[in-house]
């Protein structure tokens, strides 16, 4: 404490003044660059001399770019202002009208009101569309600002008034989705951003992936920028800031964040007692970003120029965000009294200004000149990503209906008085009579200077945005024989499906046509999955190559980094890794090229940990493979409760376009991956795959004849001969082998013949079953269809028993389509560490439990007596009073 005090206290003011005067002379005579240099030298010398000088990442609460250094916009400011006003108006009208007709629809006026200028300057001067000589910028629009983006597309003629009237009414006629959703508007939106925090992290990994494509020589991505528009409240999401350091480390100067600092989150101020801009400045700078603050608008410039004593600057520093917000909810007189009134000299400074003049003192983010200068500098900056922290007013222009009010985020409707004020403030040429409950949209005549300007600007920037194009050429996938080495089985060699997957991956990587499109992604678990062999052969992507000699240099599987490396080794970082996967899996829409990403990870840390990003991937119609490694609650054995996954095969089923499989054998895996390649990259289907692979070693059989179709549909019979079977056993994944062992026991010890079925996908069977059931329901007089699973099982003999390494509900998915006794075994409950055998006994999915279950169902049907069942329980030393696995 005392040391801090001595740093802060001025022990010798006279000496201090001398130093400052010296610096002042340099500033005057030689300019700020020289002054900066000298200070850096002094700091460096101090550090060398042993003074601990902690880094201070904040600059003054002023614009980073001084007025004399601002690049001037070449645009017509007056026309741009008018266009921006019309866009503001139509955005407001869209939300207003939707809620006049249907108050339940909701919507947001205030977010776009605060960010209209930030977008407009981008649209008029910076955002480049995909065109002949430009790959296209990728813009992540803030989700809640969607009405403003629609309003611009309406002026551009890309959306019709009928569509604007159907904002948030998407069913039936063509409407507009509430937020950016490529699934719902596949020709318009590219990036779903409204789940807070996903936009920023996806944008960072998109920028990185764009570089990866470039460095690997696959695409020239020079000139392309990734813009992400975010909210200051949104920056509180861990995902928003979690990957900032990566962007700094990889020097992603193709990335520009624009944080709309309107100081308000949903419930109130973001940092009422502090300053969000200052906090974010130090966060970003610490992570290696170029920070451009746009705090004050041009009207402040003359005042700051007259602030020779620094009192205005002092006042700017000491006021907290809660007050700044409040000023804008009040009026000029209030600002005079409460802001300038703190010091008589400041009151004097504004004495000649009217209250209106004071009210007009604008925030940087509402000043197109300041915003232009910031964007211009961001475009020029090299070697770092840039963040622009723009101070704005939430609900700008909404007046008493929302401007700066705590309730403004939820505001979906303004009263007529506020609507008229809004019209007057932005000079919308509509009369009182034209304004009723229904607020008309306004669009100038096509030959008006505004419209001509609007189209000219976009033409100069290559076309209109946002637009989602699916122009990537489809790939030709070779026949299944590509995977012959896998299809022929492993002989006597025991290996896990994870290793089979590695073989499949190697075959694909080696393939002359497909190899270069592959993107293997792993979150620091490559050795777990046996992927380390890829390091030397395909290289780990590193933006700067490899500057060190790796410890294992000279070994066969050495740790090789390369700027052309193909493997994305993401570190312990599932959120980032899945964002890389998303960028690659949507490259067909955003880069015009189909990449084939395989993301392999601990299955427990997938849907459970980053499920919202996977949901977003579904929305974006990602095409790629998610490989859930070391899957299965009893198969991972020793790792215990946090690692043993018994439910990812359930969680995936929530995503409608996620196709999922739990294969038991290598050939099943090969058939599934092959068909996935065909469906996604040859046919261009909007699906992605989730496949679990396990780490248990066993002999992989050769593929029997005529099973491909069953593997893909989700079930096929494994036993060749179909004798007089009395019971049907269903198995999947590693538990398949317990099912086969159970069938042997039933035959050898109870003389009961069982059919054995391999179920590769309960969720695919269920989806098809539900679809058939629905069709039958809606076509009651037509001949009913029969689902595939019903076709397979209805003609079989005896009851059915299923076992898997997942929760019982996974196998239960097909129950509605089975009109027989159906009993399911699964691994409900928390995992724990032990051997596979002990775990399978504990969770009651081993061969003995399968036998007992089969016997019980047969006894229920009267085929055998209950005595036989009881005897089996004894024989296999099963404790009937054993605690239920879900309770311990």
């Amino acid at each position, binding site marked *: 404490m005392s040391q801090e005090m001595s740093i802060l206290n001025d022990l010798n003011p006279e000496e201090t003044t001398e130093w400052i005067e010296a610096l002042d002379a340099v500033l005057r005579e030689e300019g700020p660059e020289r002054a900066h240099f000298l200070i850096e030298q002094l700091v460096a010398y101090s550090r060398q001399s042993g003074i601990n000088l902690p880094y201070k990442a904040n600059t003054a609460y002023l614009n980073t770019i001084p007025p004399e250094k601002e690049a001037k916009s070449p645009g017509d400011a007056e026309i741009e202002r008018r266009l921006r006003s019309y866009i503001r108006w139509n955005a407001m009208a869209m939300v207003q009208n939707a809620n006049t007709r249907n108050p339940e629809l909701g919507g947001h006026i205030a977010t776009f009101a605060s960010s209209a200028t930030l977008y407009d300057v981008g649209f008029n001067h910076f955002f480049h569309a995909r065109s*002949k000589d430009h*790959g296209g910028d990728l813009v992540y629009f803030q989700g809640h600002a969607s009405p403003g983006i629609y309003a611009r597309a309406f002026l551009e003629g890309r959306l019709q008034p009928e569509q604007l009237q159907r904002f948030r009414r998407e069913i039936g006629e063509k409407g507009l989705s509430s937020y950016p959703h490529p699934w719902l508007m596949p020709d318009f939106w590219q990036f779903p951003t409204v789940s807070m925090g996903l936009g920023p992290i996806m944008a960072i990994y998109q920028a990185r992936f764009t570089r990866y494509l*470039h*460095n*690997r*020589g*696959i*695409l*020239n*991505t*020079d000139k392309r920028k990734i813009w992400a528009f975010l909210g200051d409240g949104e920056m509180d999401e861990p995902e928003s800031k979690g990957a900032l350091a990566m962007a700094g480390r990889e020097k992603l100067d193709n990335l520009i964040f624009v944080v709309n600092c309107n100081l308000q989150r949903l419930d109130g101020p973001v940092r009422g007692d502090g300053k969000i801009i200052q906090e974010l400045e130090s966060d970003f700078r610490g992570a290696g970003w170029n920070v451009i603050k746009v705090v004050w608008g041009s009207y402040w410039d003359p005042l700051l120029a007259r602030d020779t004593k620094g009192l205005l600057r002092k006042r700017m520093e000491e006021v907290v965000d809660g007050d700044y917000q409040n000023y804008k909810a009040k009026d000029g007189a209030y600002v005079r009294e409460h802001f300038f009134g703190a010091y008589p000299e400041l009151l004097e400074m504004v004495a000649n200004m009217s209250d209106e003049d004071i009210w007009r003192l604008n925030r940087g983010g509402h000043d197109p000149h300041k915003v232009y200068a910031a964007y211009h500098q961001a475009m020029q900056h090299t070697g770092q990503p840039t963040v622009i922290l723009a101070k704005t007013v939430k609900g700008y222009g909404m007046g008493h209906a929302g401007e700066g009010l705590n309730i403004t985020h939820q505001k979906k409707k303004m009263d007529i008085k506020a609507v008229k004020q809004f019209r007057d403030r932005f000079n919308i040429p509509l009369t009182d009579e034209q304004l009723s409950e229904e607020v008309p949209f306004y669009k100038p005549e096509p030959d008006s200077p505004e419209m001509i300007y609007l189209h000219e600007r976009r033409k100069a920037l290559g076309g209109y945005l946002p637009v989602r194009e699916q122009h990537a*050429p489809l790939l030709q996938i070779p026949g299944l024989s590509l995977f012959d*080495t896998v299809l022929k089985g492993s*002989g006597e*060699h*025991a*290996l*896990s499906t994870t*290793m089979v997957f*590695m*073989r499949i991956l*190697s075959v694909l990587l*080696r393939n*002359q046509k497909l*190899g*270069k499109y592959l993107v293997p992604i792993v979150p620091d678990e490559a*050795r777990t999955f*046996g*992927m*380390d*062999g*890829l390091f*030397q*052969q395909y*290289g780990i992507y590193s933006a700067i*190559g*490899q500057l060190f000699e790796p410890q*294992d*240099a*000279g*070994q*066969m*599987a*050495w740790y*090789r980094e*390369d*700027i*052309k*490396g193909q493997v994305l080794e993401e570190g312990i970082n599932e959120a980032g890794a899945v964002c890389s996967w998303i960028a690659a899996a949507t490259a067909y829409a955003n880069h*015009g*090229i189909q990449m084939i990403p395989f993301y392999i990870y601990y299955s427990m840390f997938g849907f459970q940990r980053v499920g919202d990003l996977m949901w977003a991937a579904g929305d974006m119609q990602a095409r790629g493979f998610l490989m859930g490694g070391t899957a299965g609650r009893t198969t991972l054995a020793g790792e215990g409760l946090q690692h043993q996954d018994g439910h990812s095969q359930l969680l995936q089923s929530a995503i409608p376009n996620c196709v999922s499989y739990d294969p038991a054998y290598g050939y099943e895996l090969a058939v599934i991956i092959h068909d996935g390649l065909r469906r996604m990259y040859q046919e261009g289907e909007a699906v992605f795959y989730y496949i679990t692979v396990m780490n248990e*070693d066993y002999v992989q059989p050769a593929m029997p004849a005529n099973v491909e179709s069953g593997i893909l549909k989700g079930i096929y019979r494994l036993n060749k001969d179909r004798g007089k079977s009395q019971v049907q056993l269903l198995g999947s994944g590693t538990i398949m082998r317990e099912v086969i062992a159970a069938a042997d026991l039933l035959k050898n010890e109870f003389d009961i013949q069982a059919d054995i079925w391999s179920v590769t996908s309960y969720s695919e069977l269920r989806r098809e079953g539900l679809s058939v059931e629905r069709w039958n329901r809606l076509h009651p007089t037509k001949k009913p269809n029969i689902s595939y699973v019903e076709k397979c099982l209805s003609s079989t003999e005896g009851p059915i028993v299923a076992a898997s390494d997942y929760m019982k509900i996974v196998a239960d998915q097909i129950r509605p389509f089975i009109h027989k006794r159906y009993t399911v075994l699964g691994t409900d409950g928390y995992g724990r560490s032990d051997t596979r055998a002990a775990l399978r006994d504990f969770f009651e999915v081993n061969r003995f439990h399968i036998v007992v279950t089969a016997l019980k169902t047969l006894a229920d049907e009267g085929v055998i007596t209950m005595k036989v069942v009881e005897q089996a329980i004894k024989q296999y030393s099963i404790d009937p009073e054993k605690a239920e696995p879900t309770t311990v």
Partner: protein
Amino acid sequence: MSTEQTIKIPDLGDVDTVDVVEILTEPGQSVAEGAPLLTLENQKTAMELPAPVNGVIKNILVSLGDKVSAGTDVVIIEAEDAEQPKPENTAEPKPPEPEQQKSASAAPAQTAAQRPAADTSATTS
């Protein structure tokens, strides 16, 4: 003058032996440095043995299913003279296909990363 080299299995780290599960080349084939020659696998990992130099495969000394360990002789390659152009048959990514050409035409030039040196013993032929 060309040089015949016997390619040996390099240091396998903490792995003792691996199985030869795929042979990806044949005698007489021209290969580029880095092109995969064999796939080696054990229960924990799989890896490809790359060609250490541009050259022509003279002989393959192992069969499918063989167990090999560090130092095992596996392939004899006749190394090409350094001045000769690289053969086409390589595992290197090829330039983008025509359909992607418009955006790929100015793909950046990168210095090729150093390929791992497989353990070789050279004899002059």
